[in-house]
């Protein structure tokens, strides 16, 4: 099997290992959004598991629930959505991820694309207005569904950034954003939690940590460069604040911790993983500036998933090309 092939060892335990990492963001989501967060997660996971069962039966394939892929997809997708999302949307996303991205390629360890990123991108295209309408944070009160009369939209850090309202963001609001007490995707707003999870990945999946840290470091450098271009001196208070907002807003940390680290799509060598993470970050930063969506991080992940096997085959593994030419000699 060529090295560039996305098909990896099916006995890998990446999703089993990463499932506990979703517990902390889930607790944060339950803390901020209460029962609604639990309901969205439940619907998403149920849809993923049921799709897995139905899909496996349809193609007479052995049921692979033990790889925890469906549960991982369901929980992660739910945590990337706003708590106010109508319940059929996470269900649709999970069905899409399992039925059209996971099962057709022979399982989650054989899929060339991140299932969660694909599902989130699909939902972005279909229901972008609802996907980025985050409810205002009201602890100890029920979250109203999108479209209902009582729904009140809050402003996430990414929306503030897009609307150029970041000058009014105070230090307290910034700290709130750091701990996750701000409108946003229900499980992915807390930078503290997500940065903490990097230590978990470092211990549990050291190779995946390389992807994560290269992605996050490149994003940070990108934020510093853009602020330096805008402000000149990056050591001014406003510039520092802007760096923090740009870095912690959107799905930067979520992608760095959960999506770019997915093992089935990752390269083998450490140096390749660094390049993979850096290229993913560059794509993400570009899409953040030029995309029509508030945050098109999932598209950047799909882009690097699609691009990497080609890069690995034609640029990073020239010895493979030599071997290929031996098999098919030129006349």
């Amino acid at each position, binding site marked *: 099997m060529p090295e560039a092939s996305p098909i990896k060892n099916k006995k890998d335990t990446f999703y089993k290992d990463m499932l506990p990492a979703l517990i902390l963001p889930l607790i944060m989501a339950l803390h901020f959004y209460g029962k609604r967060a639990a309901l969205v997660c439940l619907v998403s996971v149920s849809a993923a598991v049921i799709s897995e069962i139905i899909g496996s039966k349809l193609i007479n394939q052995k049921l692979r629930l033990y790889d925890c892929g469906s549960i991982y997809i369901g929980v992660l997708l739910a945590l990337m959505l706003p708590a106010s999302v109508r319940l059929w949307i996470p269900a*649709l996303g999970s069905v899409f991820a399992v039925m*059209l991205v996971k099962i*057709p390629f022979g399982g989650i360890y054989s899929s060339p694309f991140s299932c969660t990123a694909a599902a989130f991108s*699909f939902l972005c*295209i*279909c*229901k972008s207005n609802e996907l980025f309408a985050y409810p205002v944070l009201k602890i100890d009160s029920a979250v109203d569904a999108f479209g209902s009369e009582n729904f009140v939209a809050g402003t996430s850090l990414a929306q503030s950034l897009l609307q150029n309202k970041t000058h009014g963001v105070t230090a307290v609001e910034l700290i709130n954003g750091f701990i996750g007490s701000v409108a946003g995707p229900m499980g992915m707003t807390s930078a503290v939690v997500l940065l903490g999870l990097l230590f978990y990945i470092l211990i549990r999946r050291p190779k995946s940590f390389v992807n994560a840290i290269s992605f996050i470091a490149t994003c940070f450098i990108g934020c510093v460069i853009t602020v330096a271009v805008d402000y000149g001196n990056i050591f001014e208070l406003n510039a520092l604040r802007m760096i923090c907002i740009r870095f912690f807003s959107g799905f930067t940390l979520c992608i760095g911790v959960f999506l770019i680290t997915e093992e089935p799509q990752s390269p083998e060598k450490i140096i390749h993983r660094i390049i993979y993470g850096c290229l993913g970050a560059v794509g993400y930063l570009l899409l953040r500036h030029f995309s029509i969506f508030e945050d098109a991080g999932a598209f950047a992940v799909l882009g690097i998933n699609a691009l990497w096997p080609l890069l690995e085959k034609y640029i990073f593994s020239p010895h493979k090309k030599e071997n290929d030419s031996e*098999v*098919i*000699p030129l*006349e």
Partner: protein
Amino acid sequence: MSDKKVSLKKMIRVGGYLRNPVLVHVIGICPVAAAATSLFNSLVLAGVFTVSLIICEVLASLIMKKMPRWLRVSIYVIINTGIVFPVMYYLEKNQSPVFASLGIYLPLMAMNSFTCIHSEKYAVKHSVKESFFDAIASSIGYSAVLLLVGIIREIVGSGKIAGFDIPFISGLNGALMPFGGLFIIGILAALHKARVIKNYPKQARTIEKKFTLDESREEEGTFTYNLKNRFKKNEENF
């Protein structure tokens, strides 16, 4: 094949269903994936396609057997253009919304690879009757998929059917985009294959044979000839 053995029913079963041009041979999927976003769009595309295929195949069988291939292919395009442009003119004159939604894909039907491949592969080697039946069978298979995809995409993408709103269905923009069309074609192809394997197990082994231009016409020195030879030599050396 002699005229006595020709049966329209059998040709529809084989050419339209078992060897469906879109779901099995994956020919001419551009209009299906990109432009078949509603029932009316699909009807227009299916009508244009059917007329152009029938005329091309009949003419190819009738008068083009002794012409060189390069000339025949040019004539197919001219015939298709002669059929597509009056339809375009009519739709544009009546300011039909179908014309706006089909966009570039309607004029592109004039360059449909399906018509050229079918005329070259089948019509120039068979009688007029057989070619006519083949055109009918292929058109039915192609149009059925076109209409099915159009209906599904209109329901899923716009929450409508033939322009009428369907209650409780919220449109998903993704289904109206080309990638949505390709997903639907993929799902239909999988269902079609499962059904063929179940109902026609013997034919299922042969239906995936590639529908390409006549291989015997590959002359020495051409790209495909060299490529095949290279692989053959390679296998021998190995």
